[in-house]
């Protein structure tokens, strides 16, 4: 069964490689990473920390753009062009299609984020003589968070067009990062029930501290699996009921 999902994922990866927007964002992000050391805020004594923070922010934004360009329009365009007919008329379950679509987007994100991180690491090494290995912890957290957002985008795209998917996904990002602003702190009784992606926000310890330990990385992976499972299940349920 997973073979069919992997086949669909493979087609999405192949398609992403040919998409200009993906390459434009990658090149732009690489140029920006190279340009970070020339920013005027440097020279205040926290050069490497600021570099790491800006690099991670850049990776996050660039990967979000790439993810939305891949996930928002995939299913709507396949429905519109009726390419789904030759897929779903086979021995392919709809959940396999949803899973394969998400896996493809997630795999592309993995490659893109790894490339961004490597570029930032090389720039950091050349500019400051510091390999900045902790950047990879930040990159992992970004991958996991964009993976969750991609699952949300794929789920919404089973019933909505690309514009609505993009708006809803950005709203999802905003809402899932607004817990502190809306609820104040853990003392609020709703704190533990609020859908939040704050678990993945480790920019501070990565940029300014000593990173996070293995237990926290495993916690992030657990939260990621829970979010993705729920969202893909919801997406599959919605898609199951849809006429294509």
């Amino acid at each position, binding site marked *: 069964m997973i073979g*069919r999902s992997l086949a669909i994922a493979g087609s999405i990866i192949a398609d992403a490689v040919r998409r200009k927007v993906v390459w434009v964002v990658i090149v732009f992000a690489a140029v920006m990473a190279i340009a970070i050391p020339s920013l005027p805020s440097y020279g205040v004594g926290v050069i490497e920390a600021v570099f790491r923070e800006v690099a991670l922010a850049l990776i996050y934004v660039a990967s979000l753009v790439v993810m939305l360009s891949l996930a928002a329009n995939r299913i709507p365009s396949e429905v519109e*062009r*009726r*390419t789904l*007919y030759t897929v779903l*008329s*086979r*021995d*392919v379950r709809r959940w396999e299609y949803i899973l394969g679509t998400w896996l493809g987007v997630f795999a592309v994100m993995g490659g893109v984020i790894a490339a961004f991180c490597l570029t930032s690491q090389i720039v950091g090494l050349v500019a400051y003589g510091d390999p900045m290995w902790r950047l990879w912890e930040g990159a992992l957290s970004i991958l996991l968070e964009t993976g969750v957002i991609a699952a949300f985008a794929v789920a919404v795209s089973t019933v909505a067009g690309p514009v609505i998917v993009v708006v809803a996904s950005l709203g999802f990002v905003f809402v899932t990062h607004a817990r502190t602003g809306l609820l104040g702190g853990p003392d609020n009784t709703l704190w533990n029930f609020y859908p939040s992606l704050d678990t993945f926000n480790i920019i501070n310890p990565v940029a300014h501290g000593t990173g996070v330990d293995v237990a926290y990385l495993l916690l992030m992976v657990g939260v990621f699996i829970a979010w993705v499972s729920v969202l893909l299940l919801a997406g599959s349920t919605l898609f199951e009921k849809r*006429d294509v």
Partner: protein
Amino acid sequence: MERAIDISGARKTYKAFSGATHEAVADVSLAVERGTIHGLLGPNGAGKTTTLKMLLGLATPTDGTFQINGQKASATARAHLGFLPEQPYFSPQLTATQALVLYGRLSGQSKRDTVARIPELLERVGLAGRERMTLAKFSRGMLQRLGVAQAILSNPSVAVLDEPASGLDPMGQRDMRNLMLELRDSGTSILLSSHQLSEIETVCDEVTILNSGRVAARGHIDDLLNVEGRTSVRASGGEELPAALSDLVGDIAVSGGAWVFSIADADIRKVVDVLDDEKWRLLSVAPMRDSLEDYFARLVGGEGTEVAS
């Protein structure tokens, strides 16, 4: 023995946000016997595509049962089915081989097996030597042929073909008909939806005609088209028909210097004797047969509620 395809009491109603309902398919039942080609005919909006989509799991039926090879038409049952949609679309950056490998993997075939089959498959659909050509360079007809290739990639026992000759030139249409007959002869059962009545008439063993979401007629093509009790005669020999025939003949036409007319079966002997006496040349005597076009037009033009068999 179970049928290749069995649809019973299919119904599909769409509901708008306003609450208004639209019945795309009101009541459709059809059966495709094994090793036959079954034509599905109907004007636009008759419910053909919706019926096929319900069979293929692309639309949820409001009511009805759908079976493929005796099994409920689930994803598992569709493992034995190949489908060619109308105007198939493929990712233009893929090569023919890449596209077929993808569909092979979706059908549970290994890449190696699919790649090994591709040259023979492409030759069969008239795309020999196009393995490495990107689909962006394919013409409309070539994409149609590739669509057929993906439909028969896994050697399905049942094939559903929606307008297979669409976009093909006359030679391509002939090739497509030959391919369908070849598939049938090798045991594949085919449900063929087509607007091309000549195609249906040439290759189909049975047809079902839909109109307004219901079955307007179904049966063997000969039973539907043969005009009971009438015989068609073709003869040549004069500027006017012999006077003795004037009360016996109908549907008179002149084509290529020959007279074509219909007579009652009971008058065959008498008419042949008259033509013989008048030294006319008898070219053919055959059961009178409607053209499918005439039959179809008559049926959907106002008599479309009767099931013919």
